[in-house]
Structure formats: C-alpha cells, structure tokens
C-alpha cells in the first residue's frame, strides 16, 4: 500500500507509542486523586504540559489546555473568549478555515455573536488589509489558520495578527496550526497569535487528543462542563496515555523536522515533475503561486473526476483523498476551492496527495506512476 493521505492522519510515531505504553498498563490511575497511582498519572500529564508549553512558546504550562482533538481546540479557541464574561464577542474568520472553525463561528452567530467571513485570493490567502477591515469594536476573536488542510497554502498569520490588533487592540488572534505543525516552526511568538490549536494525530500521536495553547491571562468560557479539570477550562478525566503520546509525537516531529522537509520535499518534487512529464495537462492548483506546506500536492487532471481517480487509486492500493468529504464519505464541493473561485467542475476534479514522516523520496515516483497509470487507463 502507498499511503498518500498524511494530512487526514499519519501513522503513530514509535516515540509516541513507547511513551504511552505505561499509561495503557500499570500506570492507569486517574490524575485527579490523592493516591500514588493518581500522582503518577498527574505527574505524566503535567510533565507533558511543561514540554508542550516549551515547544509552542507558552509563557506558563497552565496556558496549555488539553482537549479531545483539533476540533475541540478550535471550538474552545473561538467560543471560549467570545462567550467569556458578559456579552457576545464577535468573530472574524477566513473563508477557507477548517469546518471546526467555520461551524463554531456559525454556532456563535446563532447565539448572537457578530460573525464576519473574510474572502481569500485565488490561492486561498486572506490579506491583512481585508482582515483588518472586518475587525471592529465588537470583534473578540480573529481566527485564520496557519496552513490550509486541503491545499497546504500558508497564510500570512503574523501580518494578519498585527493588522487586526491595529484595528482593535483588544482583539485576540487564534490560529489553527493543526496542519502547519507537521512541517513548519509553530509557536505563539513566531505566529504572533494569542491562541493556537494543535492536534495529536496529525503529527504522529494518537487520535482524539489536542491542545489549545494561549498567552497568559485569557479568560475562557468552557465548552465542555463538568468536574473542573484543566482549571475548569475543559472538564473530563484526562486521556493520560493520549496526552503523553501527543507530546512525545510533537517533540519527535520537531526533532525530525529538517529530515522530514528534505525527504518529503524530494518526494513531492519528484511526484510533481514525473506526473507533469506523464500527464502534461495536469494542473497543480497552487504550484509556485504561493507558499505551501512541503507535504501537500493539490492537483487535477482535466476531464477526470476526483471520485473516479480516487476510487481507481484505492483499487490499486494507493490512498489519497479530495479535500472535503461528508459523513458518508461522498465527496462534497469544497468550500475552500469555492472561496478560491475555482469553478465547480474543476473543483470536482481536484485531488489531494499529502506525504508524511514515513514517506521516502522514492514514494514520489511511485505516486506519480500510479496516477499516470490510472489516467492512461481512463484516456
């Protein structure tokens, strides 16, 4: 099998599995308790918290909130500040955000929070000027993702954050760095943001764990209510093994970043060059037009639907995807491509290939050959 869908999820890194093992076994305690097994579990998550805080540039470990994944972190990152205190804070988001952000904004809109959606250019980037223009006195949170999950396009987050604060100094800037974390340096300072979302399973940790990392002093209304864990910001018994695994994976990913960039970069170059040679009319959606994550390749073959191409690839043992799929797995018109003004017929042909930490440069050749074979068959 050739796995080319690392942006959907990626295999677990051995460091994560190893770090988790004790907490799936002997050290099973509930961290909220007074006895020794509890202390061992509590110690594990607090140590993980310190390390993640250091990794992502949080001033204090308690500025890290562990959650049930990227989606939950996005929910908390938007709803937390907007619903905190009294009143209904407004949100400004880009049109190409992940559904976790878009749907949270929509939910906040239903609660009476003012919501504005900022358009993007043809590569899917929001401009600092457009974001600033959408910010006003009512705005509490601006959320613009660090890199897009479908196309890999990198947003000018630091510039956007600066422009947004100029428009309203009280605004908080959140970024969803779930995809960017895989291959870019990510931390609060570098991105110039106040809140940052990461997800474990995209960097080689277990699924169902994530974190929201913040600047100090930000008040959050919880979205999950209960026993008051995570200083009341996120209730529920901790997934100790998950948290430990996430942080081990994140550290491993950061440690491995240069090698990752080289191997994956080489794989993608080979893929795009060889596919172009074999299928000259292939269109790479982003190409050299904008900065993009090294692991993403987004393309279409004119006249061949993504559905057909992906099913044929699946049959040949190659796992790839299109940007958007509904619960049933049926492909949907991507809101990202629509926001980039791609015609619907072209959007329905777009396929996403994403390489990952297990990719070797040679996989780029195999991927190109597999796509070329299917295209040859269909033509």
């Amino acid at each position: 099998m050739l796995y080319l869908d690392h942006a959907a999820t990626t295999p677990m890194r051995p460091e994560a599995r190893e770090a988790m093992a004790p907490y799936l076994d002997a050290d099973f305690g509930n961290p909220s308790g007074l006895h020794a097994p509890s202390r061992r579990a509590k110690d594990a998550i607090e140590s993980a918290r310190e390390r993640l805080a250091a990794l992502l540039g949080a001033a204090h470990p308690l500025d890290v909130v562990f959650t049930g994944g990227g989606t939950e972190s996005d929910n908390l990152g938007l709803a937390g500040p907007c619903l905190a205190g009294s009143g209904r804070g407004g949100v400004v988001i880009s049109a190409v955000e992940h559904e976790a952000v878009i749907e949270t904004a929509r939910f906040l809109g239903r609660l009476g929070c003012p919501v504005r959606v900022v358009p993007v250019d043809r590569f899917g980037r929001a401009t600092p000027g457009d974001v600033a223009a959408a910010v006003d006195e009512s705005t509490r949170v601006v959320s613009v993702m660090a890199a897009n999950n479908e196309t890999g396009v990198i947003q000018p987050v630091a510039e956007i954050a600066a422009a947004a604060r100029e428009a309203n100094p009280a605004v908080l800037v959140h970024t969803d760095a779930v995809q960017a974390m895989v291959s870019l340096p990510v931390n609060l300072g570098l991105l110039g943001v106040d809140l940052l979302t990461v997800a474990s399973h995209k960097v080689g940790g277990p699924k169902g764990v994530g974190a929201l990392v913040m600047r100090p002093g930000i008040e959050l209304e919880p979205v999950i209510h209960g026993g008051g864990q995570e200083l009341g910001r996120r209730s529920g018994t901790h997934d100790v093994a998950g948290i430990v695994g996430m942080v081990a994976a994140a550290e491993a990913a950061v440690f491995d970043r240069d090698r990752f960039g080289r191997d994956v970069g080489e794989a993608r170059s080979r893929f795009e060059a060889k596919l172009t040679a074999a299928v000259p009319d292939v269109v790479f959606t982003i190409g050299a037009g904008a900065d993009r994550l090294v692991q993403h390749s987004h393309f279409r073959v004119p006249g061949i639907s993504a559905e057909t191409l992906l099913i044929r690839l699946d049959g040949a043992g190659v796992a790839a995807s299109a940007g958007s799929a509904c619960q049933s797995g049926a492909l949907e018109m991507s809101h990202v491509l629509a926001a980039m003004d791609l015609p619907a017929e072209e959007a329905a042909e777009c396929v996403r290939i994403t390489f990952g930490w297990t990719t070797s440069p040679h996989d780029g050749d195999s991927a190109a050959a597999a796509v070329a074979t299917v295209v040859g068959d269909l033509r």
Partner: protein
Amino acid sequence: MRILVAMSGGVDSSVAAATMVERGHEVIGVTLKQWSGPDGRLPTAGCCTVADAEDARRVAAKLGIPYYVLDYRDRFAESVVAHFTSEYLAGRTPNPCIECNRRVRFGALLSRAAELGCDRLATGHHARVDHDGTRYRLLVGRDRDKDQSYVLHMLGQGELASILLPIGEMTKTEVRAEAARLGLRTATKADSQDLCFVAGDYREFLRERLPQAARPGPIVDATGTVVGSHRGTADFTIGQRKGLGVSFGEPRYVVGVDAATSTVTIGRREELAVEACLVTGVSFISGGAPEEGAEVAVKIRYRSAAVAATLWTENGGRRVRFSEAQLAVSPGQAAVFYRGDEVLGGGTIEEAA
C-alpha cells in the same frame, strides 16, 4: 470479472452484492447520493438516508468489498427531479423511477462502472436478463409480486449486455433467507425503502418543491362547470375517487389534473374509461419492432396487472388498443409491452383515447 454493485442499503441490493462475491467476482459497492437535506448532508428520514448508507457500508464490510458513496445529486436534480416537475406541470403523471433508471442508474452509473474498470453493473432489481443465442432479453422477475421489469423497459441491447440482475431468479423470501444466512444486517429491513423521495411520497415532494401544486383552485366537470374547490393539485391523481370533497348521486373520479392552472377535472366512471392510448418515445429491447397489430400484454401502471392489447404504428409511436376499456390511463406513465415473461419494450403514454 470486476463488478460494480449499486447498493441502496436495502436487502435486495445487499444480496445482489453478496451473490456477486459468492460467484467469485471482484466486487465494488456504491451508494448513490441523490439528494441531500438543506445542510448538504444525507437526509435522516426517507430514502438515501445516513442510516441506509451505513447499512450498505456495513454489508460491504461484511462481504469484504470496497464501498463508496458517489455524489449524483446534480445528475439526479437535472434529470429526474427536473423531468418530474416539468411533466407534472404539463398535466401529466410522470414516473420518476423510470427516468432515474434511464438517466442515473443505467445512464451515468453505467458509464461510471466502465471508468472504474468494472466489466458489469449489478443491481438488486427483481427482473432477469437472459441471452437467447442472438439477443439479450429482459424477463420479469421470478417473484411476480416484486417484479420491477416495468421500470427497466427502456433498456436496450447495449445496457443489457453490461448489467447483471442477480436476484431476479429469487423470490423475496429467498432473498431474505439468503441475507439471514450470510448474517447481513439488512435481512429483516422493511421493504420498499428503495423508493426515493420523489417516488416515495410524491405528494409531499410536490407540496414542498412545487408551489403551483399547493395552490388552491377549482374542481370542474367535463363541461368546465365549477363543482367544487381544492387546496392544491398535489392531493389528486387520475382515477382517484376518495377525498374529492364533492358529492353527487354516483361516484366521481379525477379525470384530469392540471397544476399549471390549478384545475382538477372530475367525471363519471365512463369518462375515465378508454379503449386505446397513444404511446410515444417507444423503444424495443430487441432493437426491432414487433409486427403491426402484434398481440401483447401491456402494463399501464407500475403496480397493476398487464392487460391484453394490440400495437399499431402511429406518428412514430404506437397506438395501443386494449381488448377491454381501461380506467385511469394516465399520460406521463409508462406503457410497457410484454409477451409472456418477456419485456418487449415500451414508452410513455402521450394521450388516453
């Protein structure tokens, strides 16, 4: 062979897929997403629901075959829904299943099967295909109560060569027994869930989608005299006797429904009876037409018995002369010609007279 199986999440198509696997074929299962709720997701009630797709997916997993949900919403809207509404507005009684089979299942999906590298498309229809040495023939399903050959009459030699109807030889009871034997979770699922939102409760569909059909208007008799009023043509269908809200000495029946003018015409039983009808858009499965005056059995509605008739060429279509007068012959419905178990072909009823 590699076979694409259209799986609705019902027991028939589940067993169709299972049969293909048991025969040693390489099988791919697909469910067509034909429409979606207002939020773009699969609907939670009616047909093509999330639950149906999950049933199909679980059956596919049990059979160990790959399974996909394909987006045919645009295709379905363009062909089936648009055809249904325009026909209805023209005062006719369209059958959406036929258009769906023509344009979507045995149209777009059949070409998709080839694109996906499949040699054949299999469905869970109760009908049979055989080959008599020179030609493919379409035959009624072994289970006559469940026979679906009516909605397949428009298929030609090309389509029949490319499709398999594996449960056509089975009765519904056998289909269920087979599903139970294989432990498929659809074994005891209620019937007729294969009707889509248009075909299922078309009245509700009309009320929701076609404002003209929900508009009040007059009930008139054959002379045009207003004899009552109604709250929307969606509530009426040709031949209907109940619910007219008008009373006369003898029963009255709906003889015409015109959504464009919101008019429902009623008449006596005699006014509903016709000796013949004109059928257009006729195709014959063999590719050749039967002789002038051919004696056939004809079905003028999906769920009614075939009646004896003769076929005469007229204006490129066929005049169908019934051996005895028929009630409620509705323009827009299909007239399907049979000889014994064999489907000869059919077309659309253009006019009843």
